[in-house]
């Protein structure tokens, strides 16, 4: 039941959102996209991004936009593998819940 833990779900969602763009995404945008789906506080994201970076699931590169610096996060091979793992777990978990709610599906 790993998805009961918010930390795991947040990790999974961050990886999923970042993986959607080939060139990666930046903190503010990642946060806004996640907020559309989950009710997280905006300050929760930085520690997650940091940890995923340390775990080598994300890499960073800096770009200048409008004379300002912007740090982009991109998913790595390892990150994709971990995301896949979360996706499989999610499927298994939600199938169990679905069965509970609506009985066996054909």
């Amino acid at each position: 039941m790993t998805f009961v833990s918010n930390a795991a779900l947040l990790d999974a969602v961050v990886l999923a959102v970042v993986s959607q763009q080939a060139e990666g995404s930046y903190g503010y945008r990642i946060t806004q996209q996640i907020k559309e789906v989950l009710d997280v506080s905006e300050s929760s994201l930085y520690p997650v991004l940091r940890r995923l970076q340390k775990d080598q699931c994300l890499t960073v590169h800096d770009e200048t936009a409008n004379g300002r610096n912007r740090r982009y996060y991109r998913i790595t091979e390892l990150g994709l593998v971990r995301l896949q793992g979360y996706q499989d777990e999610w499927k298994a978990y939600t199938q169990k819940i679905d069965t509970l709610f609506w009985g066996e599906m054909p």
Partner: protein
Amino acid sequence: MTKYEYIAKLEKLLAHMPPQERRDALEYYVEYFDAAGPDHEAETAEKLGDPETVAAKILEGAGLSGNADGDSASGAAQPPSDAMDGGNPADGPVTRTGLQGPGLLVLFVVILLLVALALALSAAATGFRGFGRDKEIAVTASEQVVSDTPAALADSTPAPAAQDTATPAPAADASAPASTNVSADTQAPSDWETTYPAAITEVDLELSQMNLVVTVDDTVSAVTLRGTGVADSALRVDQQEMDRENKLDARLSADQGSTASLTLVLPANNMPRRLEFKLTGGSATLPDLTLDELEVDSVGAAVTVGRITARKVDLQEEGNGTVSADAIAADEVSLDAKRGTVEAAQVSVNRQLDVEAEGGNVTATLQGRADAFRLEAENKGGTLNVNGESLTGEVRRQGSGSASIEAECQSGTITLGFSG
């Protein structure tokens, strides 16, 4: 809260992190504010929540929780510091009684008046000079109220004096919360030093024929003025501004051709958020500074400024002097040469650059490409050169970025270059 205030607070709360990690975290939030848009700073600060909570999450993530803030007894879980409703949330070394809010303020004012009265009487008796007495009051009264809230530079709205004079300097550093040092004790010593015990948030100096040196020092915990070659009785400090707004508002004049000098020492860990200097003649040297607002108004002085990072920077020359800055990085910059010269070697502006020449010369090199800036220029009779192109009359151009330049040349010259 502005972006600057928020980040400054966050920086203090993360003081005990390894430098690189702290830099990464602060950089993330600076970029966050930038991406949300410069017009939404207050909203963004609101959405992010208190810096204390954000800092706690950062520290927890870095495996450093529990030691969130060695400066404050209450650590990371401190209640919102913008609940400035009288009582101080921290548990400082001085135990508060049940007095809160207005009660505390009234008590403080009463003590202040009694002390003032006592000192006035003794001063009259000993023939002590007026200015010294004023200093003594500020000194003694503040010693009543010492706390170690890690209040940041500018997070308080004009709060009762009782709040602000509670020195937010780190508790460990409370060695000399108040000291007035008159080295020569003749009638009018010309070598003196004064330390202002309150946490000064703004310094406003109006000087005439003085040589001003501003330094930032991480070994001092309070704003200090040192004078040489000028009597300390010549220094006029607006005590009301000090008591009410924690602002050092002072005037000092020397005779033309004198070698009088004034050194303003700013504590690196408790920097005022705003500095304003009005200088008539003489000279001034400002170091590299990071603050909210800097204003330099020169009338014939020779002013050199280091690398400034701020929200707003205003440099103006009205006489035949020169104001010259090594680098400016700010949201809003204004360069105005009524006469004389204003120059800045590297200007990085996020929102607006205003340039004006009414007979003087303004020269600036901007970071970025010329076409990234929106331009509104008017040349009424001088020389206006933008990116190597000489402009006449009125010129309006759209820019690809979000920053804009407004240039007005009545007479004199304006030269704006771009470093691409």
